């Protein structure tokens, strides 16, 4: 009987040892893999930069203009062209620029010349001409971007000025 008891504890010990070792290896390996896979979520950030977006004369009429900007950026291992859509309007001396990205789920909004509003094609969100969300699902105003005119050229900063 005592013999059997010893046998059981020995078996228990071996089984626990196997479990602890394989568990430790699996957790170490899995943790390393998941750290690498997860890291870009934090490290892969796009930095703001000033980008030339055409000449100032194109927006001289004081209306909203749709401007597609293309610039070099780093995206993970890729160092290449990135595209972004912006609405720009001249307010006297100031340039007013709005990101076209809907604050709901990220579709690009369209400017409706008749109502003077921005409409999102995805879920019918509506923003007024200042970018404020007026109806539909969007939770926030359209993001404002820094913009200026320099030597007759329209310059836009890709970083969001005010969310």
């Amino acid at each position, binding site marked *: 009987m005592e013999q059997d008891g010893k*046998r059981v504890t020995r078996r228990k010990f*071996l*089984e626990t*040892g*196997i479990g602890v*070792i394989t568990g*430790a*290896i699996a957790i*170490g390996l899995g943790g390393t893999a998941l750290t690498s896979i997860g890291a870009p979520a934090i490290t892969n950030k796009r930095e703001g930069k000033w980008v030339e977006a055409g000449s100032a004369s194109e927006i001289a009429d004081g209306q909203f203009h749709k401007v597609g900007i293309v610039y070099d950026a780093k995206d993970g291992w890729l160092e290449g062209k990135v595209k972004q859509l912006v609405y720009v309007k001249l307010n006297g001396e100031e340039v007013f620029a709005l990101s076209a990205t809907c604050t709901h789920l990220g579709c690009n909004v369209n400017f409706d010349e008749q109502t003077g509003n921005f409409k999102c094609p995805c879920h019918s969100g509506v923003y007024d001409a200042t970018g404020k969300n007026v109806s539909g699902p969007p939770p926030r105003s359209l993001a404002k971007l820094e913009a200026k005119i320099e030597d007759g050229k329209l310059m836009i900063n890709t970083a969001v000025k005010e969310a």
Partner: protein
Amino acid sequence: MAEKNDRKETLFYPDFMFKEAIAALIVVIAVVAISLALPMKVGDPADPSDSSFKPKPEWYFMAPFYLLKVFSSSFEVIPTVIGPLATFIFLLILPFADKNPEMHPRKRKLAMSLMGGGVLLTILFTVLGILA
């Protein structure tokens, strides 16, 4: 009772598995240590127009690579195809060709010397290839 216990002791699980787990732990620690001590680098990007690069295979492909230099081009097929293929077929049919029921290495002179010779030649060519 005693006999039963003895038999139980030599089952794969958990006795042998425990030893495997210890060995596994040692190997994992060794691999991680080597990996941290010798971090990876990158070479130069592949350039098909470059003539200065001397190709070198992984060490385990060195033996046929070395023999390529030894055989003249008309017999090139020996190290490139025939050698590897013959080795593979020899290994595949080994348990069916070797009818000798003996298990102990000393009582299997022919099999042992064939395999020993093959292994020694492979090691020799590998070393020669690495030194060349």
